[in-house]
């Protein structure tokens, strides 16, 4: 899920609306399965998702929370929550609305198109929406917990030719720039990027709030627009074909040896040494 943030109140970007800076923040929400025991489909084309409960990707929750926080600090005018998927992914948009997003956009993708929907298609949709909504900031979760691709944010930035602040663990809006502290392999890296920009949320960026009962009721009145990918001029055909999905090999029992010589001998036998 990404949060398109529309309208940061920094005053340095003049747009068309009367007197107001319009930064739109858009969040792309991914609708994830909650998997207890993962089972591969008998025909090895994928994983069983029928009858498995789905919910918002945890990193997307963090993205929404960050967007709502920015709005509460009055640094951002409007938060738009976006999700691409079948009818049921509207639930995640509603959760985002209950957390504080202003409105939602549901890009309906179902059936075969949904099965082959990957980061490239989603990032094309996000880029198109960003232009359409005149967004200044896109916040996504760093990766989805079902496919762990970690690509959508980066691809979206590339398609829009915007700077990206990925794996963000701290975000500060500073004039028309954004200071992002990123979690990298070596530790923490702080960068300053121009707006408009794409951010991806990492685990420690914030702790998502619970939706309160009054907010859930208020969310009912918020609008969710329905859009088709074709309307945005996006071609959903995938250039990837999944050939096979299979379980990892069963763990084999190990062998115990008495001496180091035995160990070396066995390793040589197995051709490892």
């Amino acid at each position, binding site marked *: 899920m990404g949060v398109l943030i529309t309208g940061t109140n920094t005053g340095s970007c003049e747009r068309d609306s009367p007197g107001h800076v319009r930064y739109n923040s858009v969040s792309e929400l991914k609708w994830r399965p909650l998997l207890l025991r993962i089972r591969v489909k008998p025909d090895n084309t994928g994983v069983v998702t029928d009858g498995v*409960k789905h919910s918002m990707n945890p990193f997307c929750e963090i993205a929404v929370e960050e967007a709502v926080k920015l709005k509460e600090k009055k640094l951002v005018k409007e938060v738009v929550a976006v999700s691409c998927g079948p009818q049921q992914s509207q*639930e995640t948009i509603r959760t985002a609305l209950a957390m504080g997003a202003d409105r939602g956009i549901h890009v309906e993708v179902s059936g075969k198109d949904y099965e082959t929907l990957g980061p490239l298609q989603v990032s094309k949709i996000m880029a198109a929406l960003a232009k359409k909504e005149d967004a200044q900031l896109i916040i996504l979760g760093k990766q989805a917990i079902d496919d762990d691709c970690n690509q959508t944010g980066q691809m979206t930035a590339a398609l829009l030719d915007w700077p990206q602040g990925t794996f963000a663990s701290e975000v500060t809006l500073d004039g028309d720039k954004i200071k992002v502290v990123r979690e990298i392999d070596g530790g923490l890296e702080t960068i300053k990027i121009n707006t408009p920009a794409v951010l991806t949320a990492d685990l420690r960026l914030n702790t998502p709030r*619970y*939706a*309160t009962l009054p907010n859930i009721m208020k969310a009912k009145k918020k609008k969710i627009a329905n859009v088709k990918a074709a309307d945005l001029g996006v071609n959903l055909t995938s250039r990837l074909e999944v050939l096979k999905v299979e379980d990892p090999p069963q763990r084999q029992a190990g062998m115990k040896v008495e001496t180091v010589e035995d160990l070396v001998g066995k390793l040589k036998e197995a051709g490892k040494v």
Partner: protein
Amino acid sequence: MAALGPLSRITRLGCNFCRNHRLMFNRNSQKRGIASCIDPSYGLTDEQKEFQKVAFDFAANEMAPHMAEWDQKEVFPVETMRKAAQLGFGGIYTRPEVGGSGLSRLDTSIIFEALSTGCVSTTAYISIHNMCAWMIDTFGNDEQRESFCPDLCSMEKFASYCLTEPGSGSDAASLLTSAQRKGDHYVLNGSKAFISGGGDTDVYVVMCRTGGKGAKGISCLVVEKGTPGLSFGKKERKVGWNSQPTRAVIFEDCAVPATNRLGEEGQGFNIAMKGLNGGRINIASCSLGAAHASVLLAKDHLLVRKQFGETLANNQFLQFKLAEMATKLVASRLLVREAATALQEDRADAVSLCSMAKLFVTDECFNVCNQALQMHGGYGYLKDYAVQQFVRDIRVHQILEGTNEVMRMIISRNLLTES
């Protein structure tokens, strides 16, 4: 938390993970992963599913990890309950003008059922608190509502419901605590027994005798902690419900302003019973949550525990037993939800249905939890495993808010009284 040998994977419902780790390990999936026949979200509107989700998340993150500790150390979890109140759980069916959430009885049932999976005892207290807030909101005048309800809805202050006395339980209308009118005060004398929250709560909704014998002589007064003449007995040691203190509440020439009377003199018993109708649905909902959690625990155990060369899940007796438990659970849920709807719509059968729901559901869900414990074998008897706490906590639901015997009285009276 301790876990034993080969069953170390059988953990308390979600208690291992803090909120952030939840993201990585999908602990919630242990409760809601695979859609199954006992999924409590079937038949709900989208909005109700959202309420339920918040309640389940809150239960899993804020309550379940502490459920055992609260039970063992007898902690009254004020901070956690205040967090719940911030989400709107302090006055779920109290009107929004005074700080409540203004939801329906059915929404309330759904929420308590979900919260109960985290801790029955705490959820049950929250439901009693909600009942008191509703009584003041519904029967109080505007000054009383504005004076008491906002603090109750935010759980800045906590409430207790005082009806039962040492000499009058099921025969509630024979209560003896007297309230004599003296100028602009009532002077209370007497004592209440088994009061949930007693001693730790701030606002006491007290049924007392202002008039003659029987139900018509009873009025309802709101007594605040700190009023001279109000004192408390020792904290009772209970089998369950240990996260809420239970004490006697004692009145010795306790002067209460007459402006604290809810409704008219003589209306008190009626107010008490109307409060209890909803209270019965709430208690039944708490039993549902415990049964739901127990069925999931039992299911997990059956899939892991092996005897005689195969998992217990391959044993037909246990399969059938689990099926029966699931069926009773779903039947109970449907009855509670129907009763909640009837009460909301003020249907003619509402009171009987609430009694039937309380009777049936508390009995059946106790059996479900008990059988879940049995399926755990010896491990079910250990406090390291959550199922025993569910059993102990919901045992009292068959007794309070009107014993199940009194429920039968209400139902049979409805059937046998010539109209």
